[in-house]
């Protein structure tokens, strides 16, 4: 009897492991404001996680939804904006009722709510976006990413696929700022041309300010990039050769033959899993070029920082923790380095190709360092066993 009960418990546990219920509570709003790279602000429409009795401000892009393969997912959606909206679950092959397309299912009006339900049958990267007047609503910012993690091993890209110990999500998107600032009469939709380009909602030097947008790893790490494109144009990724980039998956399905490449083009609505396996120290960028789908003309570039270096005992990368603090970041002509350690020590600034571009000595406390001789870009700073980095953006 005891054995029977134990077996029953094990079965129940296994079932629970295989298929869990996941609930997300989301809202849509049309009153978002985002700060652009040049410091100006613009309006956007977007999604967020709904929290009762809070301001519920949308984010650009919307929050990433992470679930496990086999999960039954419920998205409880409340529309807090005056226009109708939906959540289309892009690539998840949901049934018609949960597809979020007004013409074939329904839309959600002001202050109304609904629940979208689906089973996450395939590991991989997916998207969600509003499918009401999609040309406008998507351009205004109503999109986000969904990640379905492999089960039982969440650190494997797919069953029998490569494992990874680091994961980064990069959602490319774009906007036409005139549309965002005048969504009431943006003009004929077919004349939309993007003039601002983002990764995870950030552009240019903004991308270096948050560690989730910079690849930090050590040699021999296995890094999975989940790449998606929500723009109307296509993006070209260029990977530094030392990253040993291998494309293993697209649109939530394993590729028949994985392939190594230094470049990858991602068209509107596509997603890719790329595994990086650097073997040596790399301080470089992944270049993301944006192109128009109509005539393939170049439109803009973003850079994703890549720092692959070996940590020795006691060495730490440090942007804001104890030890070495640098501000402002991005910087212009001068940086102030706060050294919280006693005594003086050497400070070395490296360019991304590993060259020493500036040496100085810093004392305990604030130290102003003239960087006017350095050009725009990202730099590594080493002092003792502490690394940090900053960006010059003039």
């Amino acid at each position, binding site marked *: 009897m005891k054995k029977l009960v134990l077996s029953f418990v094990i079965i129940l546990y296994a079932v629970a492991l295989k298929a869990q219920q996941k609930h997300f509570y989301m809202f849509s709003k049309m009153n978002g404001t985002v700060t652009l790279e040049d410091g100006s602000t613009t309006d956007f429409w977007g999604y967020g996680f709904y929290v009762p009795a809070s301001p519920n401000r949308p984010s650009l892009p919307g929050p990433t939804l992470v679930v496990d393969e086999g999960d039954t997912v419920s998205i409880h959606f409340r529309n807090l904006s005056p226009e109708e909206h939906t959540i289309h679950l892009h690539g998840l*092959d*949901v049934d018609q009722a949960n597809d979020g397309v007004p013409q074939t299912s329904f839309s959600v009006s002001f202050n109304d709510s609904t629940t979208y339900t689906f089973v996450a049958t395939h590991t991989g990267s997916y998207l969600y976006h509003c499918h009401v007047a999609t040309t406008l609503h*998507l351009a205004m910012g109503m999109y986000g990413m969904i990640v379905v993690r492999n089960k039982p091993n969440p650190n494997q890209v797919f069953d029998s696929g490569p494992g990874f110990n680091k994961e980064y999500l990069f959602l490319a998107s774009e906007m036409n700022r005139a549309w965002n600032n005048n969504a009431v009469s943006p003009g*004929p939709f*077919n004349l*939309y041309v993007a003039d601002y380009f983002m990764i995870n909602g950030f552009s240019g030097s903004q991308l270096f300010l948050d560690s989730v947008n910079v690849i930090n790893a050590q040699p021999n790490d296995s890094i999975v990039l989940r790449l998606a494109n929500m723009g*109307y144009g296509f993006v070209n990724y260029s990977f530094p050769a030392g990253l040993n980039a291998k494309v293993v998956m697209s649109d939530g399905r394993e590729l*028949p033959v994985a392939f190594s490449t230094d470049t990858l083009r991602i068209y509107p*609505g596509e997603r890719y899993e790329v595994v990086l396996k650097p073997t040596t120290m790399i301080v470089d960028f992944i270049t993301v070029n944006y192109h128009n789908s109509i005539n393939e003309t170049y439109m803009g570039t973003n850079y994703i920082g890549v720092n692959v270096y070996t940590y020795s005992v006691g060495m730490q990368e440090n942007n804001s923790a104890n030890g070495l603090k640098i501000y402002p970041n991005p910087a212009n002509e001068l940086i102030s380095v706060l050294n919280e350690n006693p005594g003086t020590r050497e400070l070395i600034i490296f360019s991304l190709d590993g060259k020493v571009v500036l040496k100085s000595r810093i004392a305990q406390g604030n130290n102003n360092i003239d960087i006017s001789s350095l050009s725009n870009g990202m730099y590594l700073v080493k002092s003792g066993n502490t690394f940090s980095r900053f960006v010059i953006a003039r």
Partner: protein
Amino acid sequence: MFTNVRANRVADTLYINSDTLTKGFQFIHFCGFNNSPVFSEINAKLYVQTGDTLDLTIVNNDTLIHDLTVDNQLTSGNTIAPSDTAIFSLSFNSEGTYRFYSSYAYGQLQGASGMILVGYPGKKHFFWNLFDQDSLYSKNVSLGLQTGFSSTYKPGIFTINSFSYPQTSMDKFGNVMANVGDSIIISIVNSGHMISTLHMHGYHFKIIQTTKDLQKLNWVKDSAPLVPYEAMTILVVPDKPGEYPVHNHNLISNTNYGIYPGGMMTHLMIDP
């Protein structure tokens, strides 16, 4: 379903016709390969079996010189003068979708581009001939002022088999009507000048043939780009009933002269 179902050595005749139509209060100049001497903006679709030889007669009813160029078969230069007729013998040894077209710029800009589906017997077949058009370009082409494609191209018309949504739902060749479990072959050509990335709701599909990016063979996707002039064959096996859109995810093309919804969008209507 098709008038051009063939076996062995077969013959057919197509007519290059041109005319001016009014679409959305704009005059649009079209040129097409038609099954009859009467102009239609809908280009012909041919269906042959693997191994067939097709003797194709082309009658040029246009006032301009054209040629017949066929993917993997005929390179450009097989010219047909106005009011002239030419016969081409084409052999098809590989299953797939192949584009035939006039390689002259005015032919391409005005839509003279059809498709041949080879093989896949016993499956349900559908056809998506994608096209985008800029009315100003079209007008200038007809006036001899526009002789090629340039970066100023701004399309306002986006069609599948010459239909824009919602008219696409009335196109029996493009609006997919099938049942759960069917093996559906969809033959696609991008006769337009921009990259079109088709996104399918509800199902993934397998790319089983393409004339451009061979690396993507057998990839299972829900979003697949077709670069200009690419031909592709996809296989869909629906696992559930329902009505699901398929559309270009360059969303400017889901419009008719800038008005949403419209343009390059159709549906899969799957019964149990």
